[in-house]
C-alpha cells in the first residue's frame, strides 16, 4: 500500500532514494558517478568493498539499490546479531519427528550462488566471530562447514559489500581485525549535495521547496561542522527526514528544526553547549 505523502516514514533509515538516477546513472539513488564506477570496478575485479560514512548516508541502501539495478540477488547479513562464530552458517533446531537438525543460514546459501552479500554493520560483532569468514574473503574463497561435512566454495559471481560505522561515538562497535579489514577496499560515502537532499525531501514529504531547501542547508552545514570538529555527532539524512516529517504534519520550521536537529545535541554548558551552537547555526541559515 502506498504511503500517503506527508505521512510516510523513511522506510530505509538514511536512504538517498531519489526519483531519478542522478549523475551516477543509478536509478533511485544518488551517488557520484566516479564513486560508483570505483565500487563496481572493485567488485568486478574480485575485491570486496567496505562502505563507510556518517550514519544515514545510505551505505546499506546503496547495496540493495545497486543489486536491484543489476538484477542480482541480494542478501543482507545483520552482523550485529552474530553472537558466535557458528552463527554465520546455521543453527541446530529440534524438530518433531526429525530430531535435531542443522538449519543453514541464507548467507550460506548465498555463498554458492551469484549475487550480492551485504555484511551490514560488520564491526558490531566481536572480532572472534569474524574468524569463520576470513577464508571466505581471501583468495581461498572457501570454508569447511562441519555440520555439512563439506567445503563450501564461494561462487565466482558472489560479491561482498560490508558497511560499518566507525568512531568513538559508535559505542556498540568493535575494532576490526586488521586481517579482515585488509580484505576490503574502503570507500567512503558522503551526504548528497544540498539540492539533491532538498529535492528528495520535497518529493517524499509534503514540504515546500523553500522549507526543503532550508532543511537541506542545515543538514549539510551541521555535517561540515562535525567534520571541522565543532560538533561531536555526525549528521546524516535521518534528522532531515525527521524535520521534513514534522513539517509535513504542520509544525513550524522552527519547531521542526529544533526537535529534529538541536535536540540531538547536549545542552550541557548553557550558552556554550553544542545545542546552543546548533541553534545558532540554524538561526543563521533560516531566514
Amino acid at each position, binding site marked *: 500500500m502506498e504511503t500517503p505523502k506527508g505521512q510516510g516514514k523513511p522506510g530505509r533509515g538514511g536512504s538517498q532514494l531519489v526519483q531519478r538516477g542522478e549523475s551516477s546513472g543509478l536509478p533511485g539513488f544518488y551517488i557520484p558517478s566516479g564513486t560508483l564506477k570505483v565500487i563496481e570496478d572493485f567488485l568486478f575485479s574480485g575485491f570486496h568493498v567496505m562502505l563507510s560514512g556518517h550514519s544515514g548516508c545510505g551505505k546499506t541502501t546503496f547495496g540493495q539499490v545497486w543489486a536491484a539495478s543489476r538484477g542480482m540477488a541480494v542478501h543482507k547479513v545483520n552482523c550485529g546479531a552474530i553472537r558466535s562464530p557458528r552463527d554465520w552458517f546455521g543453527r541446530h533446531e529440534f524438530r518433531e519427528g526429525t530430531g535435531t537438525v542443522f538449519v543453514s543460514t541464507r548467507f550460506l546459501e548465498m555463498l554458492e550462488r551469484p549475487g550480492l552479500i551485504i555484511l551490514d554493520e560488520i564491526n558490531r560483532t566481536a572480532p572472534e566471530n569474524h574468524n569463520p569468514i576470513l577464508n571466505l574473503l581471501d583468495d581461498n574463497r572457501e570454508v569447511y562447514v562441519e555440520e555439512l561435512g563439506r567445503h563450501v566454495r564461494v561462487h565466482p559471481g558472489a560479491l561482498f559489500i560490508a558497511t560499518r560505522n566507525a568512531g568513538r561515538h559508535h559505542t556498540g562497535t568493535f575494532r576490526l581485525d586488521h586481517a579482515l579489514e585488509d580484505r576490503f577496499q574502503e570507500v567512503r560515502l558522503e551526504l548528497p549535495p544540498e539540492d539533491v537532499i532538498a529535492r528528495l525531501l520535497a518529493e517524499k514529504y509534503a514540504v515546500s521547496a523553500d522549507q526543503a531547501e532550508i532543511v537541506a542547508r542545515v543538514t549539510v552545514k551541521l555535517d561540515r561542522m562535525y567534520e571541522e570538529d565543532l560538533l561531536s555527532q555526525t549528521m546524516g539524512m535521518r534528522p532531515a527526514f525527521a524535520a521534513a516529517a514534522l513539517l509535513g504534519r504542520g509544525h513550524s520550521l522552527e519547531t521542526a528544526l529544533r526537535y529534529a536537529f538541536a535536540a540531538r545535541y547536549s545542552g550541557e554548558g548553557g550558552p556554550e553547549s553544542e545545542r546552543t551552537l546548533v541553534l545558532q547555526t540554524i*538561526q543563521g541559515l533560516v531566514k
Partner: protein
Amino acid sequence: MPANERRFAGLHRLFLNGRPGAAGPGGRPRGPGPGGDDDPCGLGPPLSAAWLPPGADFPAGENDAAEARGWRAILNGIARMAAIVYGSGRYRVLVDAAFDATGYDGKPRRRNGRLIVVSTEPVRRPMPGFSFYDAVDAMVGQVIHEAAHGREGREEEPFADDEILSLLHHLVEDVLNDQIVALEYPGFEGYLLKYRRYFIDWKLRGDWGFRAEGRLRQLVLAMRSTYPVRVTRRSVRRAHLYLLWILARHRTAEELRRVDRVRTAEELYAILYDSRFAEHTSELDVLSESLILGPDGPPVRGEKGNRRGGRNNASPVTRAALRRLNPPAFAWSDRALEAFSARRTKAGKTRSLGRWSGEFRHRAHPSGRRSAVSPEGYRRMCRLAEEVRSRRVAGEGVRYEAAWLREAPHAQAEARYRSAVEAVRGPILRLRNRLAWVNAGAGPDRIALTAGELDEEALYRAKYAADLFRRREDGRFRVPPLDLVLLADASLSMKEPLPGGDLPKYIVAQRLAALFVEALEPLAPIRAWVFSYSSAENRVELRELYAPGRHAGKTRIGDLYPAGQTPEYGALAAVSRFIREAGRPGVPKVYIVVSDGRPDDDILPRDAHIAAIRRLASRLRAEGDAVVHVALSPQRFGSPVYPVSLRFPEEGHAGLIRRFGLLVEALAAARAFRR
C-alpha cells in the same frame, strides 16, 4: 515573492537604510522605531534570546564567581559564532580587558590563527533602548562581521600608504562581506544590523564620523548606517549608487567574491574625487536615489513612502551611464584612473598622500591624484571641459540672478549672535581700544617694550617727537572714511569643522562677522556691511546680515547658516554693484570675502569662475577699491584666487581671529592698506 524582488528587498534592508516599519530581519515587521515602546531599536526582536537563557541580564557585580562563570559561558557562546562563519581552528576571539575577571580566555584552538577582538562596549555602555539581548546581538554581529573579514579578506593590505583609498577599500570589503554573509546566512543579517546600529550609528557618528573627510564620511555613513543618511553631494550619491549597483549585479556569494575590491575602491575614488565637473551639474539630477539598481531588477519600494531604490523607467547607474551624462569629466577621470593604476603597478604601491583628515579635507580632489595625468593632459582636459561648458552657457550668456534677502531674524538669532560676541569678546575689546587710540590720537605710552616691537604711537607722543617727526596732517580723525563689506560664504561646506578643531566653519564666520561689526561700530568714519551668500539652483542668494543706518540689525548675523553652493563671483559682483549705489561716493571700498575653499557653482566651470573673480578683483582694484580674501581652510594646490589673501594660519581658530583683527585694524587705520 520572486527571487529578484527578494534579493532587492534584502539589499534595500541592508544597504538602503531601511526605515523602521520596513520588513525587518527574518521577515518580521520592524517595530515602531527609535523611541517606541515595543521595539526601541527598530530592528526587530533580539535574536540572541533564541539561545540565551531566559531572563539573562546585565551583571550586577564582577567578583561573584558564579556570575563570572555565567559570563564566561555567554562570551564563549558569542565567540563560537565565528566558527559557524569562519570555520574551526582558524581564529581566536578575545574580549577587551574589562572582562578579564570572568576568566574568559578565548579558547584558542590554534595560536597562530586570526585574532578577533570583540568589544564588550555594547554590554558595558548600552545605547538607549538596548536590552541585554540587544547588546549581545551587537557583540555577535561584531564577531560575525570580523569572522567574515577573516574568511573573505586577503592577507595583503593594499593602499597602506593612502588613507582615503585604504578607507574606501575597507568600506568595499565591509559591504561585500556583509552581503556575502547575508546571502549565505540570512538569519545573521539581524545581528549585522544590530552591530551597525551600535557601532556605526551610535558610536562612529559621535566619535569618529565628523572628523572624516566630508565626502568619504557621507559615503561611509550612507553605506553603513542603519538610519537614513542625507547625502548632499552628487559625487557621494553616485558612489553610493555605484556600490549598490555592484551589489545588485552580483547575485551570488561566489560572484561577490570575484569582485575586484582594489579596483572597486579605485573606481569609487575616481567617482568621489576625480570627476571634478560632475559634482555640481544639473544634468546629474537624474542620478537620484530613485534610480533602479540593476538592469533587470524590479523597483524596490520601502514602506512609508521610502521609494529609494527603484523607478520603472530609469536606467542602471553605471560608470558608462555617468560617462554619457558628463563625458569630459569621465574622460578625464578614466584617464586618471588608468594612469594611476599603471603607476601603481609600476611602482608597486600608491603615492603617499599624507594625512587627509585635517589639511586635505577641503580639497576638491587630493592633490596627489592630480598628477595621475600629465600636466599637459590635465591642462587640455581643463580647456576641453571649459569649452564644453562655456559653449553650453554661451548661448544664454553668463548671467547670475541675484536675490537680495533681508529676512526677519530667527527667534534664536540674538542668542546665537551674543554667543559669537562672547567668544570673541577679548579680541573685540582689544581692537576697539586700538582703533579708538588710533582714531583719537591718544593712548597709553609704552616705553619699556620688551618684545622689540616698535610702538610708533608712543614715539609720536614722546616730548621730543616734534623735533624728530613731522606730524601728518590728518585732520580731526586719523581713521579715514572707508566702506567695508564682509561677504561670508554660506555654502554647505561651511558646516564642516575648521581645520584643527571641531568648530564648524560657519560658526567661525559668525564670530569673524561679530568681531568685524562690534569693533568697527564706534568708528563713525567707517561704514560696514555684512552679507552672506549661497545659491539655490542658478540663483545667488545674498542675505543682508548687517548694514549701517536704520537696518542695522546685528542679530541677523546669528542667522548665518550653510546651504547650497559657493557662487562667489556672482555674489561679489552683485555686492560690488550694490555698494556702488549704497556706499558713499568717493570713499574707497574694501570687500572682505570669508570663504573656506575655491568657488564653485552650477553656472560656471570652476576655472572660468576663478578667472571671472580675478577679472572682477582687478577691475575693482583699478577703480580704487580692494578685495581681500580670508581663508577658512588651507589652500593645498593651485594659485590663489584673490590677489590679496589672508591665508589660513597654522594656529587654527585662535590665529585666525588674531590675524583677522589685525587685518581689520590695518584696513581701518589705513596703515597696511595699500591701494
